[in-house]
């Protein structure tokens, strides 16, 4: 507890401090993987959304979750976070039940899932990222505020801190959500389409931020739509279509055969995938 307090006092450097503080909790048992999903089934009135998914992310990395619409990508994230009930199966984060690990988990929901007319400032939203560590009834202090501002600065929105969130552009809103996730000081981030509906420049900013997180030893799982950018963005991919089709390093897993198993024989998809795979070859 006292170390946490100290971290708050130290404001800007807190992120670094927290990471090292987290290390014993996270890596204490060296063997435990970042994320272990075992036999996960999620069903809506017996209709399976995810069926028998087994997935292990061993090392901190940047992971893309790929699959057609309705394949259960968002549901996978929500199930891990405890937002939808499991019909069966278990989820472990750093070797412990997921609901015990809320403090090491960060979440970026889809942008449309909130009301942007809500009367809060950009800084307020980012500050919400610190609520998880505060616990019931405790108010954010000055140090939390500074930390939130620091996170905002990191995504380049410090100037807009006092704005009402509805006045931001789509890309800025997405960056606000990322800043909020940073403010959570998590070890594992789950992001639901953080690049949906943003312009190319913002997408680059977001991607470099994700890479930065990965380089700092965090794990980032991203639901992603654009097949063409998969090989350049992600170290690992998870191909999902109700069940896990394949998962592993992008260079081994992201190929036509697996994409066909995920998306089926639809021509346009296959073409897009073909391009993606070709560009991957070129870059290798």
């Amino acid at each position: 507890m006292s170390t946490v307090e100290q971290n708050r006092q130290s404001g800007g450097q807190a992120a670094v401090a927290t990471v090292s503080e987290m290390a014993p909790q996270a890596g204490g048992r060296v063997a435990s993987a970042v994320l272990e999903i075992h036999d996960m089934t999620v069903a809506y009135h017996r209709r399976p959304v995810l069926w028998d998914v087994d997935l292990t992310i061993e090392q901190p990395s940047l992971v893309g979750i790929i699959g057609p619409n309705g394949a259960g990508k968002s549901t996978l994230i929500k199930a891990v976070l405890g937002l939808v009930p499991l019909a069966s199966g278990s989820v472990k984060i750093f070797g412990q039940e997921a609901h015990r690990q809320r403090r090491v988990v960060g979440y970026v929901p889809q942008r449309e899932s909130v009301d942007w007319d809500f009367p809060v400032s950009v800084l307020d939203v980012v500050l919400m990222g610190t609520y998880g560590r505060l616990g019931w009834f405790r108010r954010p202090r000055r140090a939390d505020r500074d930390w939130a501002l620091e996170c905002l600065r990191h995504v380049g929105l410090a100037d807009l801190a006092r704005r009402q969130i509805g006045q931001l552009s789509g890309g800025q809103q997405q960056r606000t959500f990322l800043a909020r996730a940073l403010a959570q000081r998590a070890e594992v981030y789950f992001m639901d389409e953080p690049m949906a509906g943003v312009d190319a420049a913002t997408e680059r900013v977001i991607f470099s931020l994700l890479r930065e997180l990965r380089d700092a030893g965090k794990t980032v799982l991203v639901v992603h739509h654009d097949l063409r950018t998969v090989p350049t963005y992600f170290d690992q991919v998870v191909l999902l279509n109700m069940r896990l089709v394949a998962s592993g390093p992008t260079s081994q897993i992201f190929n036509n055969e697996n994409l066909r198993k995920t998306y089926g024989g639809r021509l346009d998809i296959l073409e897009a995938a073909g391009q993606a795979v070709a560009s991957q070859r070129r870059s290798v």
Partner: protein
Amino acid sequence: MKGIDLFSDGGQALWTISIAAAASLPCALLGCYLLLRRMSLLGDALSHAVLPGVVIGFWISGSTSSGWIFAAAVVVGLLTAVLIQLLHSVGGVTEDASLGVVFTSMFALGVVMLVKVGPRVDLDVDCVLYGLIESVWLDTQPMLGYEVPRALMSVVGVLMLSLAFIGLFWKELKLVSFDPRLATSMGYPATLVHYLLMGMVALAVVAGFYAVGSVLVIAMLIVPAATGHLLSDRLVGTMGWAAATAIASSILGYFGDLRFETGMAPMMAVVAGAGFTLALLLAPRHGLGSRAFHRFRLALRIVAEDVVAALYRTSETDSAELGLAWRSCLAAGGGGLLARLAVHVLFWRGEIGWVADRRVQLTATGRERAESLVRAHRLWEAYLGENFDLPLDHLHEPAERVEHYLGPALQEQLASELRRADLDPHGKVIPGSKLS
């Protein structure tokens, strides 16, 4: 003297207004959360549905102001919220229909109970419509040496409880209202907070019942909150305006009733409605009036800019000395009333002046503005020309639209990305470049 007015009739005015204000404040404050969570209709449903609870409370206690009423109403209110949820999720009925089924049923039950047991406890159907405000101030109890209405003490109790609830759960309520999923993922279960809120709303609704009756409670739950939402972009501000609207409704509602004899409860709703309408028209950012005004100003600016740009282009030709005819000026602004107004504004601001013979020319200040505009226009043409394969005659139109929105910073960025930032694709000099 006003003071005497307030305290005449044994303090009727003072007590009535205080009870009304204290009763409607919890509704207004908690209503903000309902509004922001898009659950206003759940508030509507709850306000109708607690009626059986209120009647049961009266029936048990035999008094118009007792804790039983609040307890029974909270139980019935939570039951309603659960039933609506059940009918929706288990019964598969759409959300609005399940709301409609549950609250009309509960309300009908309440009315029937009222008609059956009401006469025994001095409660009639009019209370449902007009509240108890016109009678409760008479039932007093000594407190600190004063005769204070019992009802005031109950509603102030609810007000305190609501304030404590909001203060204590400020962070949690804000988080759950804005992003329930994040809240749940952080370990603040959204469902728990939701039902806590519903319990508090049920309490507030009963308090509101004293002031405005059970149908018009909805006016106090939604209208002040909506007024606040139009007037402020912060949660505290929203609540502040909502509270102000509720208090103003109580005061003006009382005096309005004295004047027009419409009943205080309906008058409070009417006053709240008037407040909402005012906010709707005049709110600084989200009001219809100010939005229309901004749109008008933008239109005026665009027309004025078109005029100065036309004047600038004339000044580049051989007939520069002559300026532009008044008529052509208006035509450059698209003609009509707006163009006339825009030209007058330009004169008034000293950006254009007469040359002679109803001909007009740019002044020095006007020239500065025109240069920036034409620079924006030609830079954009140049940018389009360099980066997209567009025929020359397709460049003007997009530039004409974009020129009004390119500030100095964007202009510099464009210039830095261009291979030639001094000539546009038509071969005209870009103002502000080294050629000019």
